[in-house]
């Protein structure tokens, strides 16, 4: 006998390539997912904006050799405006700190301050000379809550606005009523720097870091969701279509192992899913680029993921791949059982999506929840579920928590073996032929 597995896989491929219905389902589904992701992202962003209402602590270190900075910083108008914005300013000079490095160290240890504004040595000099003052701003990104930086960044913008007004007023009232209007309009240039994980990333606004973070955090789950949904759709279709087209009975009397039929369809589904995902990954890259380029372009900054500790090493990638592969097998085995209860493709597709879509969405939203800072217990639970494991594993891998990942993968292996055993048993029995379920019939009965 020739290779029956290959024979089945080849036939599956021919069918998918030639059937416009199957293609459509595979293209439509991810297109529907895109807006959902968009909504999710927006929801996350508004959450971040929500947290912008809380108090933000901004530190100031004054290196000015003159005295105008003191006057401005102690201006009652300025301080009153800050208070109304829920910004509390911490004047580090009062704590005896006298250098940027010392300030950064202090803030890193302190942990509750989100930004540092440095008043340079030439502050007074620049005001007198009416030339723009360059202010360095350091943003401190919280590792477990990078989104909080949105709130900080918006306060800093307002802080700078206020500062400009106070400086302009001061110059016109006390130095030169006929001051250079260009200087009066824009007396400050603020230079953003980001501190992430104790590392100083110069000339880089925190939004860029956040973007990199989310790219890492989102790309994997999205790719995983694509892959899973394509594979599930395809597997369900391929099983149910054998029933719909009445080809199953003949196939089952072929002198081959029933497992071969199961594995042939599994392999076909995984192949199609991988091909589909590669296609979408390329599409998604364009999609994301179109969003991020305008922000990143002006800065002319390249972020080295390695430098900020967001990179994934070979071991991490291996663990991610194992998690994905095992999950795929486990889920598809279950889909194959579920779909064989359906007598037609449409029933099979709705049956499987009713069950798997919510689960995957839960996993997906959980990642946002984690981004906003939810307890890690849920994350650990999801690590042990085939549907969510490949979405969660990357997060653990990025933070190099390998032990728990490996333990969860062992559990996943066991789950996968059980799922395949059950499916093989099901395919070996006559249940595969007699299992019956059709939504229309059911509904009719209910209404009767």
């Amino acid at each position, binding site marked *: 006998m020739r290779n029956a597995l290959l*024979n089945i896989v080849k036939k599956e491929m021919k*069918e998918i390539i*030639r059937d416009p219905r199957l293609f459509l389902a595979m293209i439509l589904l991810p297109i529907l997912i895109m807006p959902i992701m968009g909504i999710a992202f927006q929801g996350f962003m508004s959450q971040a904006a929500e947290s912008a209402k809380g108090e933000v602590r901004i530190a100031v270190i004054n290196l000015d050799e003159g005295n105008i900075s003191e006057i401005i910083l102690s201006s009652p108008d300025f301080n009153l405006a800050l208070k109304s914005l829920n910004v509390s300013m911490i004047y580090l000079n009062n704590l005896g700190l006298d250098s940027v490095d010392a300030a950064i160290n202090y803030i890193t240890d302190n942990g509750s301050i989100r930004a540092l504004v440095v008043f340079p040595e030439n502050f007074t000099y620049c005001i007198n000379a009416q030339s723009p003052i360059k202010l360095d701003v350091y943003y401190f990104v919280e590792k477990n809550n990078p989104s909080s930086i949105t709130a900080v960044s918006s306060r800093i913008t307002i802080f700078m606005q206020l500062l400009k007004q106070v400086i302009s007023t001061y110059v016109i009232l006390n130095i030169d009523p006929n001051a250079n209007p260009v200087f009066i309009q824009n007396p400050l240039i603020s230079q953003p720097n980001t501190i992430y994980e104790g590392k100083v990333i110069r000339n880089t606004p925190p939004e860029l870091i956040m973007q990199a973070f989310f790219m890492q955090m989102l790309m994997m789950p999205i790719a995983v969701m694509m892959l899973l949904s394509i594979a599930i759709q395809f597997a369900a279709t391929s099983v149910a279509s054998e029933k719909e087209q009445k080809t199953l*009975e*003949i196939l089952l*009397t*072929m*002198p081959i*192992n029933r497992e071969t039929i199961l594995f042939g369809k599994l392999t076909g589904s995984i192949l199609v899913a991988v091909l589909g995902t590669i296609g979408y990954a390329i599409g998604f890259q364009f999609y994301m680029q179109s969003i991020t380029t305008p922000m990143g372009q002006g800065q002319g900054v390249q972020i080295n993921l390695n430098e900020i500790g967001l990179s994934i090493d070979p071991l991490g990638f291996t663990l991610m791949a194992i998690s994905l592969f095992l999950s795929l097998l486990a889920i598809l085995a279950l889909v194959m059982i579920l779909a064989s209860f359906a007598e037609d493709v449409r029933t099979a597709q709705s049956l499987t999506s009713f069950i798997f879509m919510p689960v995957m969405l839960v996993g997906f939203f959980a990642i946002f929840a984690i981004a906003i800072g939810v307890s890690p217990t849920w994350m650990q639970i999801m690590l042990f579920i085939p549907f969510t494991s490949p979405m969660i594993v990357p997060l653990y891998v990025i933070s190099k928590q390998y032990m728990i990942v490996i333990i969860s993968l062992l559990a996943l292996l066991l789950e996968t073996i059980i799922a395949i055993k059950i499916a093989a048993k099901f395919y070996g029995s006559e249940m595969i032929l007699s299992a019956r379920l059709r939504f229309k019939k059911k509904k009719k009965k209910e209404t009767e």
Partner: protein
Amino acid sequence: MQDLRKYFKKTKAVDGINFTVREGEIFGLIGPNGAGKTTTLRIIATLLKPTSGEVKVMGHDVVSEPKIVRKLISYLPEEAGAYPQLKGIEYLRFMANFIGENEDAVREMVEFGAEISGLGERLHDKVKTYSKGMKRRLLVARTLMVKPKVAILDEPTSGLDIIHSFHIRNMLKDFSKKFNTTIIVSSHNMLEIEYICDRVAIIHKGKIVAEGAPRELKDEMNASNLEEVFMRKVMAHA
């Protein structure tokens, strides 16, 4: 001589049936709708397991040795389809690949299948463009191209016009003679059964109510044709 015995009880569907089919003969199963013909054939084809009783195909038990049985038989289900996206010839090849030992054997099977299908050039069109009759012919060809020891055909001519039925009927008869293949066939067409079958069994409500060569049954009942035999037997057990 190989023997094929069966006895099974399945709640109502098949309720204690015994019969033996001799090697090389065409055996007909007739009976009203729901009599249990399809169920019986599915059990022989290893698709369903009997609740009780025993079925042997050439001495091999369908329950304990399904893999051997599957190598001996070729089954045409009552409602069968072919993959609509495949071309007729691709379908034959796909099926032959499961059975042929090597590329040559597969090619031979496909060529033979193409010939007996009588579909000619249409074999290079996708199955979805076929009419019901063409599909049935393709499926019958698929069943026979592997030259099985035992061919099981559930209503091979159902829904076909006279010409298609005629074609299939003659093909079965020739085939059985030429290759000494045992054929078990079910049908609602008494003329057909009378024409092709060496022996028939009339099933009613899961039980055999008559068995024998068409001629014997007619003589026994003093009937002019099989239809009369069928009606009287079924009525008697109603």
